[in-house]
């Protein structure tokens, strides 16, 4: 798609030139075959989507996803990352909670909430995202919190222990155009979370079932990309100039939105329209040049 050519570059503007996104994706034990296969498929798809955003990805599935290998992979993530980098960890599978301890089910000994908390504490990036798409994952929401880290869990607490559908809809969010609510051609973590939450709610409503999972997101509103819907292309000098101007206009729009309540509504929309028309012309020029 021609229009996509320049549109996605802004998503990386703002990060230091050396910043990298490093992602670990793990699928745990499925128990039944259908779950095992589903978890692996979701993990592989999430890994593919992460690669599409330019992230460096480590994928652990099946027999490779043991407590030790997860510990080592997180440790490696910690060693190679800088504080400017972005660290992302996805856990898909079953989790349990006995009232005190959360366990992520893997072959052999299960990592606990304490293990995960301790291992993740060694990560240096100031921006982190941890997605735990397992039953009982709400039990991790508090223990894993720290400054700069967004934690997304499939359930509100450890007591929601039924197998979750969160992972299926998270996967859908990584592919759905309607998940991209800011229309920047990519899906950020918060966008994916909101899409998934709404889909989970509809899932239970449509079947007339009592909802057995209530997803939650803790920590900063995260724009960390989890999927790119349109491919990234390298811009030329003119496109970079236009994109920079577009960025300025977007900042101006954000500022204007902040002043909306204090402004006369007609004046607000007049100014908004002015800015958007310039943005539209830039967009057209970018499209024509791609």
């Amino acid at each position: 798609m021609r229009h996509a050519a320049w549109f996605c570059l802004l998503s990386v503007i703002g990060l230091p030139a050396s910043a990298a996104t490093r992602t670990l994706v793990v699928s745990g034990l499925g128990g039944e075959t259908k779950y095992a296969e589903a978890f692996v498929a979701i993990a592989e798809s999430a890994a593919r989507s992460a690669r599409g955003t330019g992230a460096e990805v480590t994928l652990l599935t099946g027999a490779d996803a043991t407590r030790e290998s997860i510990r080592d992979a997180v440790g490696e993530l910690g060693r190679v990352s800088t504080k400017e980098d972005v660290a992302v960890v996805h856990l898909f599978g079953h989790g349990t909670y006995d009232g005190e301890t959360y366990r992520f089910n893997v072959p052999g000994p299960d990592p606990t909430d304490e293990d995960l908390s301790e291992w993740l504490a060694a990560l240096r990036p100031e921006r982190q995202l941890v997605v735990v798409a397992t039953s009982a994952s709400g039990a991790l929401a508090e223990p894993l919190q720290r400054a700069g880290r967004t934690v997304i869990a499939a359930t509100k607490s450890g007591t929601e222990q039924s197998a979750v559908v969160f992972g299926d809809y998270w996967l859908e969010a990584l592919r759905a155009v309607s998940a991209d609510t800011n229309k920047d051609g990519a899906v950020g973590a918060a966008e994916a979370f909101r899409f998934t939450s709404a889909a989970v709610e509809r899932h239970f409503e449509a079947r007339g079932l009592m909802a057995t999972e209530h997803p939650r997101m803790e920590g900063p509103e995260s724009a960390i990309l989890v999927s790119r819907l349109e491919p990234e292309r390298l811009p030329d000098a003119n496109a970079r100039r236009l994109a920079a101007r577009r960025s300025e206009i977007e900042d101006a729009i954000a500022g204007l939105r902040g002043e909306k309540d204090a402004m006369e509504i007609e004046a607000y929309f007049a100014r908004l329209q002015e800015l958007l028309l310039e943005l539209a012309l830039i967009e057209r020029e970018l499209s024509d040049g791609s």
Partner: protein
Amino acid sequence: MARSRRPLPPSALLVGLAVATVVHAGAIPEDCARLGYTDGDASTECYRGLLLDPSPAVQAEALSGLGDWQGANRAFRAAVSAAPRDPEVRVRWGRLYLEAHQDADAEELFHEALELDGGHIEALVGVAEVAAGRFDGRARAIANSVLARAPDHPGALFVLAREALTVGDVAAARELLRPAVESDDPGARLEAMALLAAADHLQGQIPSPWTERALNESPHHGAVFETIAHFYVITRRYEEAVAMLERAVEVDPRLYSAHAALGINLLRVNRFDDAQRHLARSFEGDPYDHEVVNTLRMLDSLHRFDLTEKAGLVLRTHRDETGALEGYVRRLVIDAISTMGARYGHVVEEPVVIELYPHHDDFAVRTSGLPGIGILGATFGDVIAMDSPSARGIDDGFDWASALWHELAHVVTLNATDNLVSRWFSEGVSVLEEWRTGPSRSRSVPLEFIEAAQAGRLLPVEELDGGFMQPDTPGRVALSYVQAGLLCEYMEDTWGVAALGRVLAAYADGEDTAGAIRRGLDLAPEALDEAFESHLDTRFGDVDPDRFRAKVRAASGHLKAEEWVAASEAAGEAATIYPDYVGPASAWPLVAEAEASRGRMGEASVALTEYWRRGGRAPGTLRRLVEWLRSADRPAEALPVQRSLALVAPLVPEERRRLGDFLMEAGQYEDAILEYEAHLALRPHDRADAHYRIARAYRGADRLAAARRHVLYALEIAPRFRAALALLLEIEG
């Protein structure tokens, strides 16, 4: 049924107990009750005196008389323990439960008494009263059995008199009440006077001399007005009922049952603030009335509702649903009032008030105390209360738009006759309009009705009101709706729609059913019954419900076994036996499934199109039909099906958006705007996209200012939204 006992506040009881003296030495509870009709204070003193009686049964009566129902309940329990073989105590205890609005518990105690003494008269009367309170036709039989052994028993006579008044047989009621009005028992006399006053009001003899006589005997006997109001309520004359209940609480401000009834009926005439006041007053005095508690709860929830008043419609909807429903409701009201106005020669001038409740319990409290109300909706003059589509969906058999159409027909018939139309005719016209002019037009007569007709179990037209008001079997109300609808349909087909208008006009002039039929059709009711029976025989005589069910079962079995040809044949035969049946076990979707499985998509689409044309509205089935038609590149045929789908599932954002998309393709921009705005009101996940679609629809309709505003809304959320940016440039030229 008026229950006029007045519980005292607990503080009054404590004071009473502290100073109780045996003022009325040797009194029995009946003496104290008797005093209550003329001197409330003396009655209270009398009951207080009885608190010192050693018998727990007497103490229980005294506590009950003083309004301490919890204490009375404990005392009755002790009395039953002390005399477990005495049916009398159980009956008295049962009456306490009746006072406390716990009819099921009362009935249980009456039955326990009957187990001890199968012929216990008061127990039988208690059972009859409970049945009558539920508008259960068995009340009459029980009361008659009492009279066979005790010919002048006032309780049984009152049950029968009430039953007679309920179906408008005023002469019979007067005859029944004649002995009681001369009774030595003031309670019986006053009850008889109240019922006679109600009889006068039902016949338009106002003011009734019986009202004055009752007040002369007992100046604070507000129950006389409460009784009159009851019969206004069940004949749907709510303004008149309210006026009577206002008199009742004026005469006796502590008549909490009248405050309760007044509150509930003020809601039916759209006076919510006054209703709240009287319901609160009732609750203060009698916290045991669950109808009052539930209604107050419903009123508490109204702060989450929008009240929209525009051009002939007052709409009360939950704020989460207003945006999605208002457009459809407005269109349905306008269409219904004009369509039926033309058919029946009566235009409703007053604004129609429509309340849509997302919680069924909130709707249910609005219908309390009314006989034969279906679970779909209720009309109180110009006020319609019903479940919103979120309370129950089409999968539960709730076609809300057809239900609203049905209720709007009631508005027309009630309005045209100043509420004098008979119950069966009003229901019949409403059902007919659902079938003939409504949004779904399903004429799917239930198999149970066909069986009842074939077995000769239908009611003569002159007794059809009783099918709603005093059903003799649990299924009678449902049968009566269909019978009334078919009867009106038959009348229209035979004599023309003008005949229905003439019948309506006759009711407006105060005719009863026999008179209205004679005037409207120039026919005796018996002749109509005969002709209608013959018509039903012609129409349904060949329909074999058992064979239909067997074929449907066979088709389902073949489908399960993936025997597509056999499934198609069996389902096809079922469809031939009864093509109009589009209920849950309709044959058409089975035909479609079998044909689709054979890869014969054309035949499958034809089957589902038949299902849709005959009023089938299961969303999953319609969705499939839309997909098939679209896949076959037949968008023009898919569009009306998608319209039906969005109408039956108006709160499903995807259906509204999809309809909007189809309407855009068809260039029907104004309708697309309505759909897209409803989609946005349902808070879709992607709001920028929702605004963008609205903007496109406005652009198509050449309404550029609105288009510009919505594209700005979209871009305000998502400034990089390329399609919206392009649309903005297009709008700005």
